C-alpha cells in the first residue's frame, strides 16, 4: 500500500520526508469521545507510527450523534470507548500500532503514558485533566494541543514547551464551572472544526515544520459565523508554576486534584473538586432546569436527576453521586456537568 498515502505526500507541506516522519512518531490521545474519535481517526488514516488512546467511559446512545468511531452495535454491546475505538481504528489501518487503555487519565497515569511520546492531543472534557496534561507537557518537554467545543462554538491552541505560553499562563487556575456538551449541547460541525485545527497542528508537529505552527489562540462559532485569532505573544507569564522560571508542576500534585471516596453502604461516591470556590447554585439550577433535567434545591445544595444517577452538589463544589460505587464513573458524571 505505498499508494495509500500518495495524496498527502503530494501536499508540499508533507512530502516523502514528512510521511516518513509521521510513520515514526508516537501520539498520546487523552480521551476517545468526540474530539478523540476524530483526531485519532485522522492520525491513523495518515499512517502515524503508534497511537496510545485512553478513555474511562462506555459508548452510549447519546454519543453516536458526534463520535465518529462508534456504531449502534457498540452501544448495544456497551463497549468501553477505548475498546470500540481500537476495533474501528484497526479496520481503518492495520499498520498502525494502537494501544487502547480503559481507565482514568489521572496525573500518575498521564506521566507514565506520556514518556517517550512525541505529541499529546487533548480530547478530554474537563480542565482538571487539561491542567495535568499541561504540566506533564512542560515536565517532559512534549508539545500538546488544546481543543474544546460546546454548542456551535469551539477553540484550539498549540502549546510548545519553551516556545509558547502554556495553558496555566492563560487560565492561572482551573475554571470551576465550564460549559460542557452535557450542559450546552453540541453539534457535530463544531466538533469537526476543532478537530481540523488540532489535527492540522498535529501534522505540523509530526513533520517538524515549526514555522508553520499557528501562534494564535483560535476561537470560532459556526452558527454565528465568527472566527477570531488572538495573538499570544504577551501571554507568557514569568511566574507561571507550570512553565515559568521555577516550575513546580502544581497539577501533578496530589493536593490539587479531584478526590473521590466511596461512602460505605450507601451506593454513593463523594467528589471533592481540586479547586475550592463558590459554585453559583442558582445559575447552575437555572441552566440544568432549562436543559430539561429535574432539579430540586435549597440555598445550600442542588439535587439533579441524571438518568441512573442522582447528583447532589453543594455550594463549595463538593458533590455526592448517588447510584454508583464506581469512582471513575462518578468522576466522569461530575465532570460532564461541571466541566
Amino acid at each position: 500500500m505505498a499508494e495509500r498515502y500518495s495524496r498527502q505526500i503530494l501536499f508540499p507541506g508533507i512530502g516523502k520526508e514528512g510521511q516518513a516522519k509521521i510513520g515514526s512518531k508516537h501520539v498520546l490521545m487523552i480521551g476517545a469521545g468526540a474530539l478523540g474519535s476524530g483526531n485519532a481517526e485522522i492520525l491513523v488514516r495518515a499512517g502515524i507510527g503508534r497511537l496510545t488512546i485512553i478513555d474511562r467511559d462506555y459508548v452510549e446512545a447519546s454519543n453516536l450523534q458526534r463520535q465518529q468511531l462508534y456504531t449502534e452495535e457498540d452501544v448495544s454491546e456497551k463497549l468501553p470507548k477505548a475498546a470500540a475505538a481500537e476495533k474501528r481504528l484497526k479496520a481503518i489501518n492495520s499498520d498502525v500500532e494502537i494501544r487502547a487503555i480503559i481507565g482514568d487519565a489521572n496525573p500518575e497515569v498521564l506521566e507514565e503514558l506520556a514518556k517517550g511520546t512525541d505529541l499529546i492531543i487533548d480530547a478530554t472534557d474537563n480542565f482538571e485533566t487539561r491542567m495535568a496534561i499541561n504540566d506533564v507537557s512542560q515536565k517532559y518537554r512534549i508539545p500538546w494541543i488544546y481543543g474544546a467545543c460546546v454548542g456551535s462554538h469551539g477553540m484550539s491552541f498549540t502549546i510548545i514547551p519553551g516556545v509558547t505560553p502554556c495553558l496555566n499562563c492563560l487560565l492561572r487556575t482551573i475554571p470551576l464551572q465550564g460549559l460542557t456538551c452535557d450542559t450546552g449541547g453540541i453539534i457535530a460541525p463544531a466538533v469537526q472544526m476543532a478537530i481540523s485545527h488540532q489535527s492540522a497542528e498535529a501534522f505540523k508537529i509530526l513533520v517538524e515544520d515549526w514555522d508553520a505552527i499557528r501562534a494564535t489562540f483560535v476561537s470560532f462559532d459556526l452558527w454565528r459565523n465568527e472566527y477570531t485569532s488572538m495573538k499570544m505573544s504577551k501571554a507568557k507569564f514569568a511566574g507561571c508554576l507550570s512553565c515559568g522560571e521555577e516550575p513546580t508542576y502544581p497539577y501533578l500534585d496530589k493536593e490539587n486534584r479531584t478526590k473521590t471516596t466511596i461512602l460505605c453502604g450507601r451506593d454513593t461516591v463523594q467528589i471533592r473538586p481540586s479547586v475550592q470556590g463558590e459554585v453559583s447554585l442558582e445559575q447552575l439550577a437555572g441552566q440544568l432546569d432549562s436543559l430539561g433535567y429535574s432539579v430540586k434545591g435549597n440555598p445550600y445544595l442542588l439535587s439533579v436527576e441524571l438518568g441512573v444517577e442522582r447528583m447532589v452538589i453543594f455550594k463549595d463544589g463538593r458533590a455526592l453521586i448517588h447510584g454508583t460505587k464506581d469512582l471513575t464513573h462518578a468522576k466522569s458524571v461530575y465532570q460532564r456537568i461541571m466541566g
Partner: protein
Amino acid sequence: MNKVMFFAHLRDAAGVDSITVDAAGKTVGELKAELAEKYNLPKMDSVMAAINEEFSSNDETIREGDVIAFIPPVSGG
C-alpha cells in the same frame, strides 16, 4: 470609548454581541468585575480577555479606543 465584545455563552448571558463603554484607565480585571455585576455574568474570573486581538492579563490597563474581547474557555470535547 471602548468596544467590548462577548463570545459564546457570555453573549447569551449578556443578551448582546457587544457594548460600548468608557473603560480607558481601568484594568481588564476591573472591567470584568464591573461587567460581571452590571450584566450578571457568570464566572468572569476564568474568562480570557483580548485587547485589540492580543491576549491580555487582568493587570493590563485599557486605553482609549482599545477593542476588548471576552472569550470564555470551553470544556467540552
